[in-house]
């Protein structure tokens, strides 16, 4: 069985982001710490659990992005994935979900993957689209927000429970090949192991120039980015911690909340 896990490198959300001069993306400066999208850690872990359960499972991880993303691909290898594929993009600018999904889909289409996993969304652009778009382009079934999956050797289908609203789940069977977007909380992602990290250090990645792949042109245009307007003009309470506490208690008391 062949599994492809799509992963993304994202800037840490604790970063103080600044908008670039042309207001079309954030400034990529040295203050930004990049790491693996947390939702993708759950996707890798789920693929590793299938590998531990079924015979002859091969896991490829794929990431689309500038050269910096190779460190995230190596982290995935450190967790236990078999091969790393890097689709190289030149620019650091915004890339639409269609662009990313079509690059992955066109890479994957003749590789006979039985399962494709993605995280439920990327923490940075929060689109929740790439997985379902890949499935659409490849014309394979998909389920999003997967919170449980079950597959047996020689099965031609996978059983999935997906999270829907109000704490409910929906169960379904999907014929293989299929794509699942993996919801956080489905498992506890492992840390990279020392032996895998050592192996990953020297392992060659498969690098594919994005220009060599067909892709679907963007279907929307980014017209700008900006800092959010305040929904509420909240009061920043100032002073020493003790003074802040006093002021806060006074406010809560005046509002009859305490």
């Amino acid at each position: 069985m062949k599994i492809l896990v799509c992963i993304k490198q994202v800037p840490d959300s604790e970063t103080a982001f600044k908008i670039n001069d042309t207001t079309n993306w954030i400034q990529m400066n040295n203050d930004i710490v990049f790491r693996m999208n947390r939702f993708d850690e759950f996707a890798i872990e789920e693929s590793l659990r299938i590998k531990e359960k079924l015979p002859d499972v091969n896991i490829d991880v794929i990431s689309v992005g500038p050269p910096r993303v190779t460190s995230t691909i190596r982290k995935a290898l450190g967790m236990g994935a078999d091969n790393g594929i890097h689709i190289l993009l030149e620019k650091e600018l915004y890339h639409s979900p269609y662009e990313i999904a079509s690059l992955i889909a066109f890479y994957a289409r003749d590789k006979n993957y039985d399962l494709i996993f993605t995280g439920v969304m990327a923490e940075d652009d929060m689109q929740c689209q790439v997985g379902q778009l890949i499935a659409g382009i490849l014309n394979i079934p998909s389920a999003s927000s997967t919170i449980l999956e079950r597959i047996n050797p020689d099965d031609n289908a996978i059983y999935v429970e997906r999270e829907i609203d109000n704490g409910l789940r929906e169960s379904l069977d999907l014929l293989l090949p299929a794509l699942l977007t993996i919801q956080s909380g489905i498992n506890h992602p492992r840390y990279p192991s020392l032996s895998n990290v050592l192996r990953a250090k020297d392992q060659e990645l498969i690098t594919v120039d994005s220009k060599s792949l067909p892709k679907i042109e963007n279907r929307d245009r980014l017209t700008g980015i900006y800092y959010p307007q305040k929904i509420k003009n909240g009061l920043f309470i100032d002073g020493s911690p003790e003074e802040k506490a006093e002021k806060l208690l006074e406010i809560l008391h005046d509002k009859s909340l305490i």
Partner: protein
Amino acid sequence: MIHEEIILVAEHLQQRISPITYELISFADEIKRFRPGIIITIVIIGKGFREIAGEIIQKSGINVICIECENLHLYNAEAYILILKEFISEKKVKYICIPHTSTGLDYAPGLAVKLHASCITGIEKCHYREENIIFTRSILNGKIQMEATPTTEVSVLTILPGSFKAPGFTKSFPYSPKIVNTAVSPCKTKTIKILNSNEDDPSISEADIIVSAGRGIGREENLNIIYNLAKIFPRSAIGGSRTICDIGWLGYKHQIGITGKSVAPKLYIACGISGAIQHVSSIKGANIILAINTDPQAAIFNYSDYCVVEDLTTFIPILIDAFKKKEKPHTFSI
């Protein structure tokens, strides 16, 4: 002449129409301000909705079409995409609006692929500029917003719950819904059933004050600080962000957010919560929001009435101490 149309796809669960469906109407009304001739149509896919469709028309005056499919008893992405594609094939549809929920996101991108449409998700606002309708959505944990405009004829849009207030209906309209019968058979997926997964705890929905913990609490032991803070308020409950529940520090019955609960307490205290849009959209009903966070750029401060930039692990104990001193002033004089 064929008029341009906006299609709103109703969401329903266990035979009840989800409230977000009404918010889609407000969103469509906004679009209509920029494109006055456009027609709004609500589509309900499923059986047994004729009566409720009639009620929606009576209240809103908006055309509702029930698409009834013989063998479709539960939501199925494959079926939804086939049905919607067929339904709009004869129409001049400009926008297809879908709730930004787990179910909406399950089929919206796939539908866009099949329609050669653009797909813009998590829309919070829209405005008109240089003859384009531009949509606003949050990125980077709500610290930045981006604007996008479709470059295609047809667009699939998902609308963030809580962003467009459902309209107050006053008039009564005498129309009845149109029923369309169809037969599609999904061949690659089979929806089996709806399962109850989480233990429910009504205390969060009923609490006057919710003290909520996010990733910023740092360590599981620090949850005690959150519990201690909740204790100083009457009728209080503990909430948490998705991350905290995923790690297992709190049960999912405490989770507040799009995939958890929506709450509307008198006071919501966000402790170490960054303010990701999935969380914030579920606390907008709160009367007062107080946020404690070390990161002054945290998006939560944009939604808060009172903002404290402090490390919660040191600040909350100081707050609790100050409260206890005020509460029992006499004990010191004895």
